[in-house]
């Protein structure tokens, strides 16, 4: 059952220098089912964070449609918009600035409950304890201030705040990127457990391909504001259809020296160009080993392959026939 339906969303920002425009997100479409996780991967400047904010109604897109559970997010205003946002809260990357330093943990995690009511009536004292227990923290933390918590604990509080909204969907924007390896493992486990017990869907935004593979049912790969490939996670990882996806997957070092040193890795040329000057045609063509004339002039449409696997590349046929090396 489709929970989130995003169709043709686009957004440009005016650059600091006049006339120039940052084309942050271009023609992004995807669907997400209830209780599922969509992983969004990409390098810096790919527009993955902006996409999340557009979908959640935090930034107004220039074009496109967003529906949550059949309701038009972009048409909502005022209280209706605020109520809609509470159905899809966000957890942010930086655990040190996403919690108001002047508030106690109790006030932070129960704020959505208070917002959801007509009057600022007192929230039952047990609510904070319940929420903290849900994320594996002792009730005593309710009286603490954010600066007294470790990074992992703060991120748990942020997750508790999101759960207090009773959400259909939680957007996780690089939510574990700032954490150490062992702390990160704990948070990921918690998120997986919560999905199982509460049936919440995740929009999991990350630059870490291995992590996305671990948690996502579906994955969308973004490059310079476009989704260049999407599909069921294992299909995309096993048989990437877009040259960028292939390059990205092979660039991630595997924590096993035997595997890592015996991989054949296609060289990736250069670096991601600025979103101020998105290349003509296919945005990836200057770095693509397969680029031909058509790639330089025409932006490839998204082509459906099979079973919901789709890619935007003129040479999809060539790659899929050849298989993965």
């Amino acid at each position, binding site marked *: 059952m489709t929970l989130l339906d995003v169709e043709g969303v686009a957004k440009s920002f005016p650059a600091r220098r006049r006339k120039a425009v940052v084309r942050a997100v271009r023609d992004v479409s995807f669907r997400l089912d209830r209780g599922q996780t969509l992983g969004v991967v990409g390098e810096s400047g790919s527009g993955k964070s902006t996409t999340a904010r557009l979908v*959640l109604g*935090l930034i107004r897109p220039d074009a496109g449609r967003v529906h949550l559970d059949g309701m038009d997010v972009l048409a909502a205003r005022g209280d209706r*918009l*605020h*109520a*809609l*946002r*509470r159905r899809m*809260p*966000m957890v*942010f*990357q*930086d655990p*040190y*600035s*996403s*919690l*108001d*330093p*002047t508030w106690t943990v109790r006030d932070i995690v129960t*704020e*959505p409950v208070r*917002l959801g009511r007509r009057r600022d009536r007192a929230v039952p004292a047990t609510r904070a304890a319940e929420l903290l227990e849900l994320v*594996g*923290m*002792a009730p*005593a*933390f309710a*009286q*603490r*201030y*954010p*600066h*007294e918590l470790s990074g992992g*604990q703060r991120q*748990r509080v*942020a997750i508790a*705040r*999101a759960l207090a*909204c009773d959400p259909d969907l939680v*957007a996780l924007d690089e939510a574990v990127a700032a954490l150490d390896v062992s702390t990160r493992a704990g948070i990921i486990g918690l998120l997986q457990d919560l999905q199982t017990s509460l049936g919440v869907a995740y929009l999991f935004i990350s630059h870490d391909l291995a992590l996305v593979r671990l948690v996502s049912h579906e994955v969308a790969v973004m490059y310079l504001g476009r989704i260049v490939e999407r599909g069921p996670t294992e299909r995309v990882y096993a048989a990437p259809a877009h040259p960028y996806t292939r390059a990205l997957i092979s660039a991630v070092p595997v924590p096993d020296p035997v595997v890592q040193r015996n991989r054949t890795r296609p060289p990736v040329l250069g670096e991601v160009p600025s979103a101020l000057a998105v290349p003509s045609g296919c945005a990836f063509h200057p770095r693509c080993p397969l680029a031909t004339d058509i790639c330089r002039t025409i932006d490839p449409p998204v082509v459906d392959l099979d079973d919901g696997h789709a890619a935007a590349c003129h040479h999809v046929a060539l790659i899929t026939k050849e298989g993965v090396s």
Partner: protein
Amino acid sequence: MTTVTTRPESAFAAFRRRFVRQRLAVVMAGVIAVMVLVALLAPWITPLDPNAQALLDRLAPPSTKHWLGADDLGRDVASRLIIATRATIWAGLLATCVSLLIGLPFGLLAGYLRGWADTVLSRAADALMAIPPLLFAMAIVAVLGRGVTNAMIAIGVVTAPRFFRVARGVALVIREETYIEAARSIGCPTGRIVRTHVLPNMMSPLIVQISVTMGFAILFEASLSFLGLGVQPPDASWGSMLQRSTRFAGDAPWLVLLPGLAILLTVLAFNTVGDAVRDSVGRENRRLA
């Protein structure tokens, strides 16, 4: 399940702990407290009538009758210093309030909402800050008329752009904080965000600026009174006492030294406390102060 290991410490308790560690600032906070107390009780604690002239005691050096000597009209310097505390503290408060009432709302508006309102207000503030502050205050006094109230309104107007800048700058930083976006993402309306998230996080930089403005205003009150534009005779102000003393500096150096030291100490106290507040704010909002 993670457990709690140490006792919770509120942000304020942490602030107090760091503040108390700065000895000089604690002393200076005491100085301010004493000044305020003296200002409140002044009429009852002066040893002699501060305005009573005694020509026989003209320029009398410090003695048991006049602890700190007497001025050219034979008035008791100690009593005048004490009574002048009133004008000083009152002037500082008045000017700071005017400055705060103009600067804070506009600064909040410009910083949090950005856009054209910010452009217009910032340009206006830049322009007002380019005018040499003392000249500007003098010009305002000239049109409104001499006197301590007008002088302090003038100083409030002159320092308002600085308040505006601080408020705007802090609001600009806070609006980019992730906790503001987090509040938006759980459907918190803008008015409520400003009230419950932006304002509380502005408190420490505002306290710093209030303290600094107090010091600035007291210095300016003294300056304007020294020029004869602030507190009017026969009322005493440290600045106006200095003005009279100019002519007798050689014969009665205490007339020059004491009021100046009083001004220096008071301004130093407000500035030091302001700095200490800024340094005592925790790492979590250090950027703002």
